[in-house]
Structures are given as C-alpha cells and as structure tokens.
C-alpha cells in the first residue's frame, strides 16, 4: 500500500490514500465533530458538521470550506482542522441543531452517552440566540424495544440509512421536508426489522432509546459493565452487559471487527430480562418429601444436602450446548467420561460432530462474518440465516453489495461515498442463491431461489459439486433440479474469487452438510479460495461437539437408567428436547436429580436439588462460535449469595466427594488448564485468551467508570460500614473503579469512553482506525485455522 503525504495544520502525515478525510483524521487522533458519517454506513455529507478548510496550495491563504467526510485523501492535500472560520462554522451548525432541540438533557435517556452533547462541547457553542418557538412532533409507539422521542431529532438520517439501506428493513422511513422532517413508521406499530435495536446506538441523540433500559433506568456512568458474548445463537456476537444494584440494565454492542462489527441483532440486545426475572432460581432448593416443587432450604444446609445426594452414589451427568466449555468439562470430570451425556438428541449431536469434522478437515476456510461480507458469490444451502443466525444474515446482505463496489471502483468512486455507489450500481448485486424449504427473509437478495424438501436440497448440492468437479459424486436423481439451477449456481461459484457456502443444522439433515462440504471441496480442488460456514443451533453447540459425550437416548432406555442413582443436569431443560414421557420416566427413576439452572423451567421443577446456576452475566466461561472462534464472557454481577458459575458448583461437588483431581479448581484458570490438557484441540484458548493474571501497568481493568456514583451509598440502608469491593479471581477485571481505565485488549473492554467522547462513538478510539482492528486484534481465538492442507475426500451422496 503506497502511502501519500498530506498536510494537516502545518504538519506532514503519511497516510493511506483513498479513504475519506474524516476517517483519516479520526484515525490520526484528531477530534473532528461529525454526525451523519458512520464507519459502517459511509459518508453522505448531509449534516455539514465535519467541515475543514482545504487549501489549493501553500500560497492559498483563504482556503475553502469542505466537508471532510466527502473529501478523498490524495497526495498533497493541505487542510486545516482549526482555522477560525471553521470553528465559527462548526459552532453555527450546532447552533442550528439546537434551535429546535428540546432542553431535555436532565431527563433524557441519552444524557451522559449523547453524541450531540459531545459535539456541542467540542464545538464550543453555548449561547442560544434563537428566541422563537421550537417545532415539535408527535411520537409513535414503535414496539416493546425502541422508545421514540422525535423532538430531539437532529436529522442526521443515520436511522433510515441503517434501517433501510444497511439492514434491509422496510417499515421505517423519512417523511416530510424542511424543518418538519419526521422519522418513523407510516403507521404506529412495532418495528419489524430484526436489527431495530441498533437504532439505539446509531442515533446520536435520544430519539431512539432502549425501552427495556427505561424499565430500570440508570445513567451510563453509573453502570458496572463487563465484556461478554451473546448466548442467543451460534454466531457469538460480542456484547457489553451493564448492571447496577444487582439488576442487569441493558446490553450494548462490543466491537469485534471479525464478527459483529458495530451491531447486534434484537435477540441478543433485548433478550436479557430472564436474568432479572422473578422466576429466576437464586437459592439452593430441595424437594422435601411429597411436595410438588423444590423449596428453599437454610443456607448452612446446602452443601450437606448436596453431599448426601452424591456421596457414594453412581453419578451420571447431562451436559448442555448452552453451557460454557468449562461447565461441561467440569461435569464430565465429576461423573467420568463414561457417564457424561451430551444432553441433546443423538441425531443432532451426530450432525454437530459431522459439522465439526468438516470444519476441521477443510480444506475450505471457516469464515468470520467479516470474511462473509467480502464474498462475491454466496450459496445458502438448507438454512434460514435470518432465523438461526441473524447477524450472519446481515453480513450476507452486505456481501450482496460487493458487485456494486466493483462497479463504483470502475468509475473511480470509493466505497465510502455511499449514496453515489448506490446510485451508480442501482439494483445490481453480487449473486446470492438460496436453497430452502420455505420463504426466507433474505429472499429479496437472491438471484435464484430453490424451494424444496431437505433431501432435494441436498440433491441440488451434490449436483452443484459434481458440476464444479466431475470427480465429485452425482446424486441419484442427477439433473432433477429445475431449469438448470444447479448449473447456474455451479458456474457462478466456479467463476467467483471468493465464494462462500452457508449451511447448517436447521433442517436436521446430514446429507445437506455432506453436500455443502462437497461443494466447498470441489471449489478448492478447482483452485478456488472457497469458504464454508456452518450454522449451529446454539451458542456452544460446536464447543460441545469438540468434547465427547454419550447419547442421552442410551440413558433414557430402561437398561441405561438402572445404573444411575444421582443424575446431574447442567443448564438443560430436557423437556424441550425429548418426549415428555421418556424424561418423566428418567427423572422419576433416578434416586436423586440435581439440576443446575437459572430459570424454574419444567426440568428444574422436577429437581430433587436445584442449584442456582449463574447466567452469562453472573459467570465466567468460554464458548465456541460457529466459526470456530473461542470467546470468553466475563461476569458483570459479582458473586451474590448462592448464585454461582455452574462449574464452581460442580467443582465444589468434586471437592465434597473427595474425588482425586490433579488440580484444584478454586480458580477459573486452573479449570481451563485442566480442560486444555484433556482436550488438546482447545489448547489455543490458553495461548490467546488473557487469564486472570493479566495486568496493565500493574492494574486490573476497571468495570466501573471514573464517574461511577453511589459507591458508598448503595448499601448504606443495609449497613453504613463500607465493604471492600468484591474480588474477581476468575478474570483480570475489577468490580470497582480501581485499575486501568485506558484502552485494554479488545476481549477485555468493559465500556467505551474517551476524553470528549462519552457516546458509543468512543468505540472508534479503541481501534487503529474507524471500522478497523481493535487494540490487541479482534477478540477470540480460532480453533480451526490450522488446516493441514490435505485434500479431503468427497462424501457419498447416499
């Protein structure tokens, strides 16, 4: 990459050409105010806030005001970011925006996290000359997640650009003109897009705010936050969880340039209230004789009750695809490999094992979401990504734009010049093919859609593979796909530079996996850089698939049940996965049933002993995403009473039963060490994910901001004595304001803040450039990127 020399405020800088000037200035650390620019949405030049002065040469003393977001960086560019005329203009833009802006700060949700506040301070505007009435709007009820307050709008247009153009939504739009412009729905009602929650972060003011946060509102600076990983699907988006007074308040996006980027889906953002739910299990409960449900027992009795259920008993353990690797491993260690059951229908587990095998063998690459976005031809074979992995579907939508970027580049138009790119390319897209059994919400992108049964979809896949490489086996009913669909797809994938196949376990059909593998192998054989993405059902399905486990069907059979005296079930409502009758039988026949869970679900109700497991917000654990990326979530709620990480309870039981254990698991890191010893394929987790000994300038990383308030008042109603802050022995994070407050490695970022940047825009200070790589690289460690390069065999079609 040949750099160019430009002059900013009299100093020479060497920078990458082709980016827009605002992006480059921000990357260099200049604080330029802006609104309508967004690293993921590009530039449109609407708000006029990012003005700088451009000089035609060293003799030019007056210069010209230009918008930095629309100015391409080129050799010899001379600009000033602090020219007096520019400062007046920037303050004037804020003054304009303040004309109609309500004086809501004290009562506005956004306050303290508001980009408009930050830019107002940055430009120095402070005195209102506008002496007339402000225009007002009516608000709409946009559903249970987004609160609407249109008076605060500064018309940056980011909301509709994100919602419609980036996320493909159709029911949010801009209405009216002049200073009466309105952003909302044509008719009041819940927003339909799966990504509507991002409006909260994309909106620079308090127009769109988190309605769930409003139920239990607190200011951003008062939150204790932790880096975490979403557990709602297998994509593993990175999140920030914020709590105060023991209540989880809200979820924000945490930047991972390889996975979710700046955004989240609504399921991940708003699906946390189960943590605060009144039906949470918070205490150890035991079933007293003849009672219908388990009940609370005295605190001091809990370990003796547990001990009596496990000491000297034949144990069996049932794991879970939503529990962390560490919890599953701990259970396996407690009950022994021959007594550990993976807890999902065996057919699904076999599919997971097959998928893991395919990903391990390759040779196709297992792509990150960012890599999927770069694809120039995509085939979705037997999956519905909008249902099973929404953020992956969003990446597919971005990938469909790649052809338009090529066309724009041919006319010398850079990608960031968003409106121009879209106008030039019109409806031209990169090819996306969908083979599914019903309509999907990505159909609007598809060049061709093949709707058929799962087996027929597999047949299509085998045919495509055989058309790419004639050595690949043909399906029995070869050529049955209508209208040359298979040929069209095969030709397109063959001619692409970066083809991606997306498949998954959605249809529970192993032949679909075989077919997808064959297609990817055929492409690699033909010399293509192909990628294969497999969508798993749950957040740690792949992780569970990396471990061993016996099928629960064996245990459910009368023969299996006879041996078990105490059954330990880890975070798994078996009634959701198996027939009621068989689970009833199983649970009734075991002498003791110990359940570790966080909700009083049907399985928990049947427990003899119910142990309150920590949710992701109350626990530390590692899970593996569908890409094969191992990521760790860190608790945000300190250990509270009886709620503990599942692995901590199990570790306690191991100690209780006096089982021989090569290492004591008082500390999380010790457990991880044991785990990676037992499963070398997980070894990289220890190499790359920071352990609890990690320090920066001898400090742990503070979960609370420097402005956190009420530290001593919080418990004053209980006791005026000031307790020490809770310890976190599992991670390099502190539960206090103490410690390092700068930019930590990306997997340990607890909150975003930078001097002058209190809003989520501060995220950009944590990376080398906007939409770039965060400090320390993107979070997570890839478990499958060391392929041996050996050409894998084709799967048979029958």
């Amino acid at each position, binding site marked *: 990459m040949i750099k160019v020399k430009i002059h900013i405020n009299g100093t020479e800088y060497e920078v990458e050409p082709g980016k827009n000037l605002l992006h480059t200035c921000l990357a260099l650390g200049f604080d330029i105010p802006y609104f309508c620019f967004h690293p993921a949405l590009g530039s449109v030049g609407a708000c006029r806030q990012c003005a700088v002065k451009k000089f035609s040469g060293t003799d030019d003393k007056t210069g010209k005001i230009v918008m930095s977001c629309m100015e391409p960086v080129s050799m010899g560019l001379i600009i000033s970011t602090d020219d007096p005329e520019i400062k007046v203009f920037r303050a004037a833009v804020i003054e304009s925006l303040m004309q109609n802006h309500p004086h809501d700060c004290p009562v506005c949700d956004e306050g303290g996290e508001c980009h408009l506040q930050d830019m107002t301070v940055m430009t120095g505007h402070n005195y209102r000359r*506008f002496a007339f009435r402000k225009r007002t709007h009516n608000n709409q009820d946009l559903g249970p997640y987004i609160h609407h307050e249109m008076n605060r709008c500064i*018309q940056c247009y980011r909301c509709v650009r994100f919602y419609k153009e980036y996320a493909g939504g159709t029911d949010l739009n801009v209405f009216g003109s*002049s200073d009466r*412009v309105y952003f909302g729905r044509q008719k009041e009602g819940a927003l339909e897009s799966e990504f509507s929650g991002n409006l909260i972060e994309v909106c620079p003011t308090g127009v769109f705010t988190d309605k769930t946060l409003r139920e239990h509102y607190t200011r951003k600076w008062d939150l204790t936050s932790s880096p975490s990983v979403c557990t709602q699907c297998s994509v593993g988006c990175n999140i920030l969880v914020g709590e105060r007074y023991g209540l989880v308040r809200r979820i924000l996006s945490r930047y991972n340039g390889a996975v979710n980027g700046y955004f989240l889906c609504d399921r991940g953002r708003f699906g946390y209230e189960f943590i605060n739910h009144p039906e949470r299990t918070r205490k150890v409960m035991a079933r007293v004789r003849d009672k219908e449900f388990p009940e609370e027992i005295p605190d001091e009795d809990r370990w003796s009750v547990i001990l009596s259920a496990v000491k000297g008993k034949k144990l069996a353990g049932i794991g879970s695809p939503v529990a962390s690797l560490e919890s599953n491993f701990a259970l396996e260690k407690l009950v022994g490999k021959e007594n550990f059951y993976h807890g999902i229908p065996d057919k699904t587990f076999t599919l997971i094992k097959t998928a893991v095998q395919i990903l391990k063998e390759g040779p196709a690459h297992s792509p990150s979401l960012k890599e999927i976005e770069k694809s120039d031809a995509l085939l979705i074979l037997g999956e519905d990504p909008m249902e099973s992995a929404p953020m992956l579907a969003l990446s597919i939508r971005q990938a469909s734009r790649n052809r338009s970027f090529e066309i724009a580049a041919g006319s010398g138009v850079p990608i960031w010049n968003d409106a*121009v790119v879209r106008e030039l*390319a019109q409806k031209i897209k990169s090819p996306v093919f969908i083979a599914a059994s019903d309509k999907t919400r990505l159909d609007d992108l598809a060049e061709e859609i093949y709707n058929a049964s799962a087996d027929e979809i597999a047949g299509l896949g085998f045919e495509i593979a055989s058309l790419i490489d004639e050595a690949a086996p043909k399906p029995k009913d070869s050529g049955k796909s209508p209208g040359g669909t298979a040929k069209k797809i095969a030709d397109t994938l063959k001619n692409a530079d970066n083809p991606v196949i997306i498949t998954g376990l959605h249809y529970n059909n192993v032949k679909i996996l075989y077919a997808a593998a064959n297609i990817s192998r055929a492409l690699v054989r033909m010399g293509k850089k192909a990628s294969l993405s497999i969508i798993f059902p749950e957040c740690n399905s792949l992780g569970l698939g990396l471990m061993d486990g016996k099928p629960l069907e064996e245990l459910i059979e009368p023969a299996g049940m006879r041996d078990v005296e105490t059954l330990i079930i880890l975070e798994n409502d078996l009634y959701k996965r198996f027939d009621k009758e068989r689970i009833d039988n199983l649970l009734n026949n075991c002498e003791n049933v110990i359940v570790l869970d966080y909700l009083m679900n049907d399985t928990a109700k049947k427990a003899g002993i119910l142990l309150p497991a920590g949710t992701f917000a109350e626990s530390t654990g590692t899970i593996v995403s569908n890409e094969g990326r191992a990521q760790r979530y860190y608790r945000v709620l300190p250990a509270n009473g009886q709620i503990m990480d599942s692995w901590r309870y199990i570790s306690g039981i191991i100690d209780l039963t006096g089982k021989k254990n090569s290492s004591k698991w008082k500390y999380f890191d010790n457990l991880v060490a044991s785990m990676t010893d037992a499963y070398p394929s997980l070894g990289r987790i220890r190499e790359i994910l920071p352990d609890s000994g990690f320090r920066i300038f001898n400090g742990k990383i503070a979960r609370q901001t420097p402005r956190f308030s009420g530290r001593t008042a919080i418990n004053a109603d209980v006791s005026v004595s000031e307790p020490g802050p809770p310890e976190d022995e599992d991670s390099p994070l502190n539960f206090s304001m103490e410690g390092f407050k700068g930019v930590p490695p990306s997997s340990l970022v607890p909150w975003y803040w930078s001097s002058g940047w209190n809003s989520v825009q501060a995220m950009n200070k944590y990376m080398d450039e906007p939409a770039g790589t965060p400090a320390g690289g993107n979070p997570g460690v890839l478990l499958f990127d060391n392929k041996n390069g050996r050409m894998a065999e084709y799967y048979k079609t029958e």
Partner: protein
Amino acid sequence: METPLTQYIKPGTPPPGIKEYERTGGYDGVQRALKEMKPAEITALVKSSGLTGRGGAGFPTGMKWSFVPEKTEVKGFKYLVTNADEMEPGTFKDRYLLEGNPHQLIAGMIIASYAIQAQKSYIFIRWAYKKAEIIIRKAIAEAYEAGYLGENILGTGYNLDLYIHSSAGRYICGEETALLNSLEGKRGIPRTKPPFPAVSGLFGRPTIVNNVETLCWIPHIVAKGSDWFRQLSLTGEGGTKLYGVSGRVKSPGLWELPMGTSLREIIYDHAGGMQDGYKLRGVIPGGASTDFMTENHLDTKMDFESVRSTGSRLGTGTMIILDDKTCPVAFIRNMIKFFADESCGWCTPCREGLPWAVKLLDSFEKGTAKEEDIGILEFLSRYMAPGNTFCAHAPGAVEPLQSGLRYFRKDFLRHIEEKHCPWK
C-alpha cells in the same frame, strides 16, 4: 428583430400542430442533424455557438454535452431530460414555450438526444402546468406518428423514446439532481456533485438535463448555424433571451429580445415603466434567488457576464420589480418564506437557517425586532454561503436577503426604531 423562439406563438390560439410546424421549417434541424451530421459534430456546433443554459446557471451547453462518456462500464441507456419544472418565483418563460410551441421543444430534444446518443428522453414538467402537459402529450403522439420518434427515425437507424412525466411537486425538484431522484421515484433531495449527471445521472446512467428554453434553440442552431446564433445578440453571448417583468409596471409580460438588452429598455420601453405614483427601488433580475439590482444598474446589459459584474445573476431573466410603496422587508420575507418551506430538509444550514430567517423577518414586520437581529440575518447569509450547504438552494435563497440588507438597511432599521412596519 428576429424572434426565433416565439415567432410562431400566438397567445389565445392553439399552438402549431406538426404539419404547421414542419411548414415553418421546424423539423429541418432534425433532418439535417440525423441524416447529415455525426453526434460529435452536433455537440461541436452547439459548443461553437456559445449557447449557455437558460435555466439560470448559464453553463455552456455544448461543453456540458461533451462530458457524456462515449462508452460506459455497465451496458445501459443514456438519457436526455428536459427540466420543465419551472418553479423559480417570478419565472414564467418556459410555460410560454411549452404551451405555445411544443414541437419546437420536441425537435430540440431529438437533436440533443442524438448528439449525446441517448435512447430515452423525458420531459419533467411541473405538476401545475397541466395545460402544457396535455398540449405536449398530443404533440408527442403526432411526432411518433410522423416518424420523428420511436424506432429507426427517418430511416437513420436511430431509436429514441420520449416521455412526459409530471412532477409530484416541490421546488427543489427543479434542481437537476433532485429532479433525477424524483424521476426515479425516490425522495426529491439533491445528490452530491461530483459525479455530475453526465457521468452518473438518471438510474446511474450518463444523463444531460437541460432547460426548456435552452433546448428550444437547438433546432434553430442546427438549421441556421452558430454564426447566425451569435449575431442575434447585442453582446458576445449569442441568441435572444425571453425576458419577463412582473411587479407594478404598466405592462407586465414576456418579450423575446436580443441577449444583452439593457435593463432600462426592458423595464421602460417594453414593460411601459412604473405605474403612475410608483417609483422603482429595486429589481430582482432572474427569479427570486438572485441579488437585487437598483436604479444605478439600469444601463446594465442583461447578459450573464454583465449582470455578474453588478454582484447579481441573470438567472432566468424574469424580473420582479420592487416599488417604493412596497415594504422591502416584507418583499424579502415573502421570498425567504417560500425558500424555507421548499427546503428539502437534508442539510443543516438550509433546513434550520431559512426558517430562523423567516421568524426573524416576521419579527421585523411585527415590530419586535432588535438591532442584533440584523447581525443575525447577516450571519445567516454568510452561514448559508455556497459550499457550506449541500446544494445551491439556500445560497440562492439568501441572495435577496443579503443584498437587501445592504441596499435597504435603513428600512430594516426603521422597523426596529419605529417598532412597526413603516409601510403599514
């Protein structure tokens, strides 16, 4: 005096049908262009004639056409679009041509489309010009029937379709890029330039947008040549101009006169001078978004260059007269109110600045204005300068404001001191 554009327009009688238009030699230009000339030759001819755009910007027409690339990366059509969205306040010249001689425009469009190798062309007409739309639809049908439109025009192998599309409204759609967005069915907001429409226009394709009056010249220039065109004017800019006058003059109207006719002649000879009892205080020469001229400028030759040297712009050449019995502040407020209402709402300075200016001007009228409000109005004029906004709407809007503040400052001050409008 030659009046090529309007000689066959008789107000009160129907416009010439195709046969009558052919008899006047109207389609001779089309014959010559398509049968005897190459597209590049036509563009060169128009360039050499010096014809400049009559929509208000005065950009050299031939030069604009030359920006259309010969080949494009993606296959598709090129387009010619006629901007018939005449909504500049005070302007009514295009209407005269649209209602009066539709075939003149159609002939111009055919030649222009051929010059840039467009296969599709549109007339984007203001919704309110319903009468003209009906007339033009009839003329288009006549042209298709006669073989001047459609496939293999005049046996030359050239195909051209011509459509008329009536706008969904709003002044900003007269701005060429907002027009293209509106024509595509999108929100009528302007686009950033570059890229210019010649490179990325309608549906992202190479497009030329020209004004009605500009295109009406093309059949004449092709038929009679560029030297003929040049000698029609009094200055070097070539051709005639449709000049209009409205306001308190004895005979407001529209006249086709040599380009460069003096302001004095237009107002006092053709428009009959001021009505009895009224004195001239100011002239807005080219539609509302131009700066004032005063009695000191009466000898200005009304062409683009000469008017620019007075600090104003020729614009559309249709003038609005400010008389001495009309309050200048109210006059200006009326225009700013229009522009504020017509702001598309995309960029901050225009969207917020223009309504604030209106509110301030209202306070002058009400008598509640303070001295610092003049400073704020001047600040707003500088704030909405060209380059600070996304398009030329707001910079145009503040032209009457900032020139009015200069020439009529005393009147503004009187409103403040006397706490009411002295004209009421």
